[in-house]
């Protein structure tokens, strides 16, 4: 008996080891039992809640990045709002312009060309519509392709039209892309090509740009197509610009006469200004 106690005392560590290992193995075996399962699930619950807290604690460190991301997103949305508000405003303005212009377009009189005189320097058209039809001097004559000319004389049933291809014809035009202003004229020769005057060499006008009548015109409403720039050659102060006319004059047979004209008030004030300045020049 004493020897047994002595053995136990000498090897108590081994016995401890065996005892606690046995206990551990027992727990491992009992782990599937309900009580231990409950304890284990409680442990899991504690684990989950602490993990959640730790995760939310870690989120504090991510707040700065999150804040930056939100600021960027905010900036993107803000710029989008500005862009869309601008587009909305522009659309509103354009609609307003269209509404106003439609009231100014007026109506068109259809007329047939009954006579024409084509020469290298002086071209003239005669149309079968006159004052009885409502045609007045200085009305713009056009086709769906573009500007034909202006009415220079009116009789009861006929009207004389000075076409673009007349050396005395001048019209203020503007380019669609660079908004370059210039005066359209024709110097004789080719019936398809006119010239653009008063275009400074510093202008951003490019070959291929479409030209339309401008607001500065004294007879035509703005926006009537005139032609397309086909050549630009530089000189000292002004560029020499060739314009391919959009109207095919040799095959012209019918034209439209526009009743819409620039504001009379505008023309009167311009005329008054001219009469004031003319004596000074002399």
């Amino acid at each position: 008996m004493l020897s047994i106690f002595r053995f136990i005392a000498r090897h108590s560590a081994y016995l401890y080891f065996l005892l606690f290992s046995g206990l551990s193995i027992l727990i491992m075996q009992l782990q599937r039992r309900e009580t231990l399962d409950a304890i284990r699930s409680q442990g899991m619950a504690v684990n989950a809640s602490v993990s959640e807290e730790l995760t939310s604690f870690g989120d504090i460190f991510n707040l700065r990045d999150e804040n930056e991301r939100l600021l960027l997103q905010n900036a993107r949305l803000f710029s989008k709002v500005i862009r869309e508000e601008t587009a909305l405003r522009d659309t509103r303005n354009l609609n307003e312009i269209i509404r106003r212009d439609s009231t100014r377009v007026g109506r068109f009189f259809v007329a047939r060309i009954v006579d024409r005189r084509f020469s290298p320097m002086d071209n003239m058209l005669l149309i079968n519509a006159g004052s009885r039809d409502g045609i007045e001097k200085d009305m713009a004559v056009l086709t769906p392709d573009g500007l034909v000319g202006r009415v220079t004389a009116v009789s009861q049933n006929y009207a004389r039209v000075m076409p673009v291809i007349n050396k005395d014809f001048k019209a203020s035009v503007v380019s669609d892309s660079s908004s370059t202003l210039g005066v359209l004229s024709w110097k004789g020769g080719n019936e398809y090509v006119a010239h653009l005057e008063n275009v400074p060499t510093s202008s951003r006008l490019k070959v291929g740009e479409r030209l339309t009548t401008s607001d500065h015109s004294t007879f035509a409403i703005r926006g009537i197509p005139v032609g397309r720039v086909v050549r630009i050659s530089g000189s000292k102060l002004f560029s020499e610009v060739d314009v391919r006319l959009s109207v095919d004059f040799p095959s012209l047979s019918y034209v439209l006469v526009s009743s819409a004209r620039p504001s009379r008030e505008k023309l009167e004030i311009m005329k008054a200004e001219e009469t004031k300045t003319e004596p000074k020049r002399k």
Partner: protein
Amino acid sequence: MAVLAVIQHFIFSRVVILGASPDILAVFIAYVSVIIGQRTGIVFGFSAGLIAGFLSGNPGLAALIGTVEGFTAGFFHVSPDSHPTMVKKRRMFYSGAATSIAAGNLFQALLSNPLALPAWVRIPSMVILGTLSSMFLAVLIYQLALKRTLRD
């Protein structure tokens, strides 16, 4: 002990390299076993393993591993009667820690396979990487805290 189990479970268990992670509990089990004694080490290892096991969901295995670590480290117990030097205490602590941690990791690799790794990868990687990472922790803890207590 509970604090250590919580630290182990929520911090060190998350640093996993091929199934192995540093084990702060094993370091303290080794310390208790080497400095105080093998029996205390076994009891400490079992209890600490049990607490950690309840958190991880496998108390039996964790308790067994803790018991094995306490038992193994106990072989490097330094009796105060022998008036050991500081160097001897340190050497015995490191030896006990390395042996017990390796034994604990071996048991863990044999009895569990959380990452479903093949045995030829799992056993060496868990034993080597687990022991190395825990030993790194042991050196750190020794230099920061345990060194002062061993001076007394």
